[in-house]
């Protein structure tokens, strides 16, 4: 299993994955941390992400903190989070300053819609790539489907779905351990 060789490497890796993340950083985090660098296995990524999303705060920031902490403690956590936020902060503020001049250009609106469609595809592909981590967890398929239907199709609030389905799913996992 590969590891970042310095806090610096951690900072710049998160910097580069954040800068590629138009319309969502998560697929890039998976791509870079798991496929490109090999710092995490797929199932480790899912586990960290699961914890990141039940905690308050943006999932991707929580994930950066955890990955950084895992390799270099507090310094690593701050480097990962800082790397992810620094450059995008400068860009988003520059855009805000320029905004009034180009926001209404139809070509900009159309390009952004197209990029939005790509982001949707990137997230779907990431989810499908992570599905095989559930191979050995047969009841897991049911909970994948339940979460998708409740939040995606029925648009129920995420918090209640996480609590409700989460409780049943964690309970099932505990019961299967005990058998």
């Amino acid at each position, binding site marked *: 299993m590969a590891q970042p060789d310095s806090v610096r490497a951690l900072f710049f890796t998160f910097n580069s994955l954040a800068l590629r993340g138009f319309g969502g950083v998560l697929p890039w985090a998976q791509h870079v941390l798991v496929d490109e660098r090999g710092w995490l296995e797929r199932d480790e990524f899912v586990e960290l992400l*699961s914890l990141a999303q039940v905690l308050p705060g943006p999932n991707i920031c929580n994930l950066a903190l955890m990955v950084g902490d895992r390799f270099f403690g507090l310094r690593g956590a701050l480097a990962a*989070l800082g790397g992810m936020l620094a450059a995008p*902060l400068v860009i988003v503020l520059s855009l805000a300053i320029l905004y009034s001049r180009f926001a209404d250009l139809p070509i900009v609106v159309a390009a952004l819609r197209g*990029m939005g469609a790509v982001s*949707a595809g990137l997230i779907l592909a990431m989810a499908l790539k992570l599905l095989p981590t559930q191979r050995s967890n047969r009841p897991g398929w049911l909970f994948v489907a339940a979460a998708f239907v409740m939040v995606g199709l029925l648009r129920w609030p995420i918090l209640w779905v996480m609590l409700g*389905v989460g409780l049943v799913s*964690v309970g099932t996992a505990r019961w299967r351990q005990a058998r």
Partner: protein
Amino acid sequence: MSVSDLFELFLRFTTLSLLAIGGAITLTPEMHRFTVVEHGWLDDAQFTASISLAQASPGPNILFVTLIGWNAGGWAGAAATTIGILLPAATVALVAYRWTERLSALPWVRAFRTGMAPITIGLLLATGWVLAAPNAGHPVLIGVTAVTAALVLLTRLNPLWLLAGGARAGILSA
């Protein structure tokens, strides 16, 4: 914006931080009520633009919070909302992570990890679906989403090419 306004802005965002489970975007109605309706620190157009600009630029979408602060109170406002929304949640995340790592042998902690994983994957599928759904009447954009997913799964193509292609498809089909 006065120093006491800034402090109030900071404090409100630190409280919101701990409520932001499942993404800070769910808190926008509350942020809107506080900054636009109650205090009039920014107007509706600035508020909406803050969200769409953050979504259009690279990086975590949480940066819309920075833009709300910037529109409300310049650089100091941006620092107040950004640090406010990040600090409490980041502290909780680190403490919780270390705690689960240390106690990872406990059956309930292992069950939590096994049990929450499928929900995470289901929620990712739902996110992709929700993002794609508004394009339902627009076959080109739905095609872009489908082709993107297929190419990511089947090839090692750098997704940046897909983003460039998507932007082009959006312009050509407009």
